[in-house]
């Protein structure tokens, strides 16, 4: 039992590390790969939780995560950037070291917040809630600081990953219906974003969302 707890804690740490890596990454291609890795970590952790608690529906969740977040979504995103021909996120709005510092502050904030909740939680989930919350906030921060629309989508998806991690590790998963619903939502959202990318590029000849300021009516 203690091994599984150790293992999950390790996975949580890796998850946080990946989020930081995403935050500092300038290349969109690697961003997507990191996202796929994050999905894989999530799959493993869900699998381990399923194994250790004996909840069968979590196996389905794990399979679903593997399929959707490790295979389908990264593939879709790869296809998108090939079609749109964007490899680089030229510049971030705030430079990367500052972002990292803000990120660290956020992690401390998240752990602080999660401390009282962790007290209540059962053995397996100690400390995980803080990490999950931190990765949600960090992903949101990534959406804030990026210029290109695709990296914002990756931020959005990573945020969902953080939520999913919190759900599986802290409460042994949501009901399968809810998970299926969310998974479908994410898939659909990605499709819609894809369509929007084409529209944005059609309209502005670029994927830089700062151009969208022009859409405001005066």
């Amino acid at each position, binding site marked *: 039992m203690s091994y599984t707890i150790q293992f999950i804690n390790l996975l949580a740490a890796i998850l946080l590390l990946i989020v930081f890596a995403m935050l500092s990454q300038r290349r969109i291609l690697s961003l997507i790969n990191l996202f796929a890795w994050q999905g894989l970590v999530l799959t493993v952790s869900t699998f381990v939780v399923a194994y250790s608690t004996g909840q069968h529906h979590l196996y389905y969740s794990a399979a679903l995560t593997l399929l959707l977040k490790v295979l389908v979504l990264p593939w879709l995103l790869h296809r998108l950037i090939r079609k749109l021909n964007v490899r680089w996120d030229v510049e971030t*709005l705030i430079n990367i070291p500052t972002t990292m510092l803000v990120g660290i502050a956020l992690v401390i904030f998240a752990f602080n917040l999660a401390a009282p909740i962790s007290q209540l939680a059962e053995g397996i989930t100690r400390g995980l809630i803080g990490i999950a919350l931190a990765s949600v*906030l960090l992903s*949101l921060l990534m*959406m*804030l600081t990026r210029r290109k629309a695709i990296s*914002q989508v990756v931020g959005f998806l990573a945020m969902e990953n953080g939520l999913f991690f919190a759900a599986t590790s802290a409460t042994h998963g949501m009901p399968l219906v809810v998970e299926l619903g969310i998974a479908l939502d994410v898939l659909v959202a990605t499709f819609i974003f894809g369509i929007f990318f084409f529209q944005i590029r059609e309209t502005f000849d670029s994927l830089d969302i700062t151009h*969208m300021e022009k859409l405001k009516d005066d």
Partner: protein
Amino acid sequence: MRSLANLQGGEKTTRMDIVGVLPLDVAGALIVLWLVLGLLGLALQGSPRFITNAIFPAGALVSLALAATGLWALGEGAGVVVLPLGLPDLPLHLRLDPLSAFFLILLGGASFGVSLFSAGYFRTMAGNTLGLLCLEYHLFLAGMALVLLADDAYMFMVAWETMALSSYFLVTTDHHVPDIRKAGFLYLLIAHVGAIAILLGFGVMQGGHGIGAYTFDAMRAAHLTPFWSSVAFLLALFGFGAKAGVLPLHVWLPEAHPAAPSPVSALMSGIMLKTAIYGMLRVTFDLLDAQQWWWGVLALALGLLTAVFGVMFAAVQGDMKRLLAYSSIENIGLLLVGIGLTIIFHAYGKEALAALSLTATLYHSLNHAFFKSLLFIGTGSILHATGERNMGRLGGLIHRMPWAAMLMLVGVLSIAGLPPFNGFVSEWLLLQAFLLSPGLPNSYINMLIPVAAAVIALAAALAAYVMVKFYGIIFLGQPREQALEHAHDAGRWERIGLGWLALGCVALGLAPVFVIQQLDRVTQMLVGQGLGNAAGGWLFLTPVDTERASYSPVFFLLAVLGVMLVTILTVHRFYHGRLRRGPAWDCGFPAQTARMQDTAEGFGQPIRRIFEPFFKIENELPTAFDTHPRYHGRSDDRIWLSLYLPIKRITEKLSSWVSLLQHGRIHLYLSYTFVTLVVLLAFM
């Protein structure tokens, strides 16, 4: 669905044992049939001929079957069905009781005529528009029927919104015209403000007992404090008033009715406004367990204002469909007066009088559905024949369109409240209810009611005046434009539709005793007493007793015909052979043209002068030296200026403040989210 039909425990229900089918099952099946017909129309948009010649008549037959089902259900008790659809813990409930049944008859009876008329009217429409219109049309009918059958708040709101949205799309059929889009938006806006009020009203009646309490049965069983039941009543009055066009929420009516195609105007004015009346009756007398007398006074006062306002504005309109729309506002006012009177009588325990005024209200709803639909589709025929809605460019159509003219004459006489047509019966009953009111224990109300009766009489008289104007300007005299020489009469389908509704007006006028016997089942349900027919037999309608007043339309008709016959015979007897035809006297001025006839503006002028303070009048008069003298007059609604424009300005101001947040930068929007999240996490 059949297997799910479970009868409510306490109520007596007789089944048709041989078939084992309940009226509610049939009604449900017919509604589904409407939906299927609508979808079929959409699928077959490649063959417009099929849609007009087959689908609309089939829809009309469904209407007729629905009316028959309603008549059948009126004799049975209440039937209840719980559908296996809907929200978790709140499946959809349907119920068919006498009140719903009565309004189903109204819906089916009037829409039968309108659908037949539509079969001819939409003939010239392009296939893809027609397919869409066919779907929206039948969806609209199905929505209205489901409103009547709904037995829980969720089902009711879904049906209510279906009705509102489908009618919005029907109103904006000609959406390339900016004015029509504007009218549609106004309609949608007020419909939704009303829907929110209704929803809140259901929330109040539900009383915070969880989702299961949203069924109407739970609301019937709930006992609200006087304060909360008043809140529920006021919300319902506001919400249904917005749909019905009660002052000051009437502004959408005169915009949306002229914008919509004529059969749609007919459905909206004839039937949809009645669903609001149905809602008021359902909430006030069925769902709320105790009524308070001041609700009735409020409804009465609002109704009187609405009636007089509507008829006043109808008198000064130059557009024939706007005129009819204002006349609908007037009739809704009369219905609201009837409801108000019923509440007052019921609250004071005068059940016989409550039954009388409720009967008058229901009867007038039915009558209005028939004659207003008739007149609206009639304007459709005129519009098709001449392309003109402005009465100032019509005239003399009785020669070119004899069918439409004769059938619309029936509608005009009915709406003007002349015996032996149907409008007279209900207005007479309403006035009877007023005249019998002394004896209420509240002296203020006793003083108010004679005044109210006088106002009703004024509105009825002005309505007759309006109809003289409407018919006289359009059909009588000489054509005011050259193009009118080529106007063609209503087509075959159109004649059938007009004929059915005219027949309805005559039948409802000639057989009041039979109608009231049927209505008794509804009044029994709502106020616990029927009108019966005090010793009048089948020939005489005597609402109270023979000493006070009785009315026999058949005798009246026979007397009128007899007098006419005697006159004709006398004329023939004494003047026979002395017939001489010559030119009409031209007042010594031989150069007369059609433009010298009285105009719509001219006819409305006295009303405009008398009620001048109520209008905002804009006149543009020619001077004596103009080579091309032009006269232009406009009477606007003061309520629009003094109530709606300030609301609009405030809304614009507020939204301009809100738009300060809008920068067009996604990062900024995301940081709003981020900051909100962090603040909430840190401080909650």
